[in-house]
């Protein structure tokens, strides 16, 4: 809101010299008026809560006294929270790598198909992305359920012993990753397919004339042409995966023994369920530096890309 006022002021107070300048003035004040709701949303619902979170994180539990960085120190000292940091990083990195590889593979396979058949397959493979993740995770939860597990039933056919999906810490971690990869890989597939389609055919023809093998075409034509989209998608997905809440909440709710908590679910546990709002705010603020670094690179990739297109 304050931004909007400062934006409008210099223009409004400028003396109306000529009709041209008056026109320009009117145009920019209309523009400010039109962007005012947007500024209100960004300022009031994103910037203000973000700075409020920093203030909150420096209060004591009852929010009566200022304790500086006390919450952060307590968190870093606790074994559980160090586990949460480790688990969040492990979860995000593994899941994003798996999603990127599977998405790349599927996009390639789709690209091989004749154009008419692609639509149908693309439509089918994108279904996991369309179902709200909280709800599809319920389905996965039921498939992982120890006594009725339909996945274990299939594994038994191939003589694989039953897997304690959500009972053992490591299997629980892997289950969370599996569900996230299932949900996110189609998004990568769609992005990479769009990128693959934008690579001009002449480049492949030229490479074929020069005697390039399939691998060389991939390495020296496809990947350089897609580099920008690949990095934007990976970085973007890293942010979303890092901040994921739905899947952990529904599938394991942090268990067994708080070993599958990620930042978001732990912040929820501490801040809302246990009622220690300042410490919860501190937990989620730990995400901020990592997200800021990733966001910087995404922004650089996007501006570079739009400059290329111009």
């Amino acid at each position, binding site marked *: 809101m304050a931004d909007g006022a400062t934006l409008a002021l210099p223009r409004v107070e400028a003396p109306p010299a000529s009709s041209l300048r008056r026109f320009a003035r009117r145009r920019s004040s209309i523009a400010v008026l039109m962007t005012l709701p947007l500024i209100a*949303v960004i300022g009031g619902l994103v910037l203000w809560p973000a700075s409020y*979170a920093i203030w909150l994180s420096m209060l004591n539990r009852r929010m009566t006294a200022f304790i500086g960085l006390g919450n952060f120190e307590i968190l870093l000292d606790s074994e559980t929270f160090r586990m949460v940091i480790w688990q969040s990083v492990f979860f995000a990195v593994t899941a994003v790598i798996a999603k990127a590889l599977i998405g790349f*593979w599927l996009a390639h396979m789709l690209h091989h198909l004749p154009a008419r058949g692609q639509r149908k397959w693309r439509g089918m*493979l994108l279904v996991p992305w369309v179902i709200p993740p909280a709800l599809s995770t319920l389905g996965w939860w039921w498939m992982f359920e120890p006594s009725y597990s339909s996945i274990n039933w299939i594994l038994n056919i191939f003589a694989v012993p039953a897997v304690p999906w959500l009972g053992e810490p490591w299997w629980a971690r892997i289950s969370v990753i599996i569900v996230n990869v299932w949900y996110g890989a189609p998004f990568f597939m769609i*992005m990479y397919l769009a990128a693959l389609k934008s690579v001009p055919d002449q480049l492949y023809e030229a490479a074929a004339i020069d005697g390039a093998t399939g691998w060389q075409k991939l390495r020296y034509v496809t990947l350089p042409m897609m580099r920008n989209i690949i990095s934007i998608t990976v970085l*973007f997905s890293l942010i979303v995966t890092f901040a994921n809440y739905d899947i952990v909440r529904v599938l394991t709710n942090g268990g067994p023994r708080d070993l599958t908590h990620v930042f978001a679910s732990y912040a929820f546990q501490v801040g809302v369920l246990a009622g220690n709002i300042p410490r919860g705010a501190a937990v989620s603020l730990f995400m901020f530096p990592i997200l800021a670094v990733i*966001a910087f690179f995404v922004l650089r990739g*996007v501006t570079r890309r739009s400059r290329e297109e111009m």
Partner: protein
Amino acid sequence: MSTTAAVSRDHPAIYHKVGSLRAERRWALWTAYASLIFAAIIMLAPPVYMFLTSIKTSADIADTSGSPWVVHHPTLENYRELLSSPMFLGFFWNSVKVTVCVVVVSMVISVLAAFALARMRFWGSQWLATGVFLTYLVPDTLLFIPLYQIVGSLGLLNSAWGLVLVYPTLTVPFCTWIMIGYFASIPKELDEAALIDGANWMQMLLKIFIPVALPGIIAATIFAFTVSWAAFVYPTAFITTPSEMPLTIGVVSQLIRGDTFAWGQLMAGALLAALPPVVVYVFLMDYYIAGLTAGATKG
């Protein structure tokens, strides 16, 4: 040098190479189909299994002797029970109410702002556009605790209107961002022609920009709809009264009662809750995908 010489002298080798190229292509096609079929099975297995469970009777679900993937006595009992439960219909109504409000509010905000940012250069407009993109990257899990305090101080905890207030943080930045891209791709000659004909800014927006950028508006609307329908963090944090819950959190928290899970009903509830986005996707797939890829390829 030596290899090219060898190939040109040795004609059969060339024919062999051509033949192998065709075989290679056919082989590539088969690999493509094989991996796509495999992927489709994995991608569709959970929803299919949810559906199978939802049409089973409780006795059928509890029976672990046979294959869990076979339905012996299909029944619509779970669906009938849910659709006659006032609680479930209440969740549905809350979701519809919140989603419709949020979609309307965010589309108005983002179309107006995108028009101004794409066409009228003013002091700070470039910064604002960048800021829009950056706020799109701020996840809801970073903001829910301060927002919990803010919504609480406004007395809107446990109210669907609190959700209408905070959901725009999820939808507005992205919608504005892709609308800027769509509006910027409209040729400047169109607005010049309109200005010469004496149109004011509002007429330009309503009669030129909105009709021309309609595909973008549909894509942004679909995005706003899917996101606010699927939102989970905010309702989980802000709503604890069942009567005010939207579907996502309602199904997850209220259909799970005690230790005996009504799995059939739970799966039926989850599928019914997922139905609206899936229906929108089925009918508007191309717009949906355009919106997905627009974030990185436009703007």
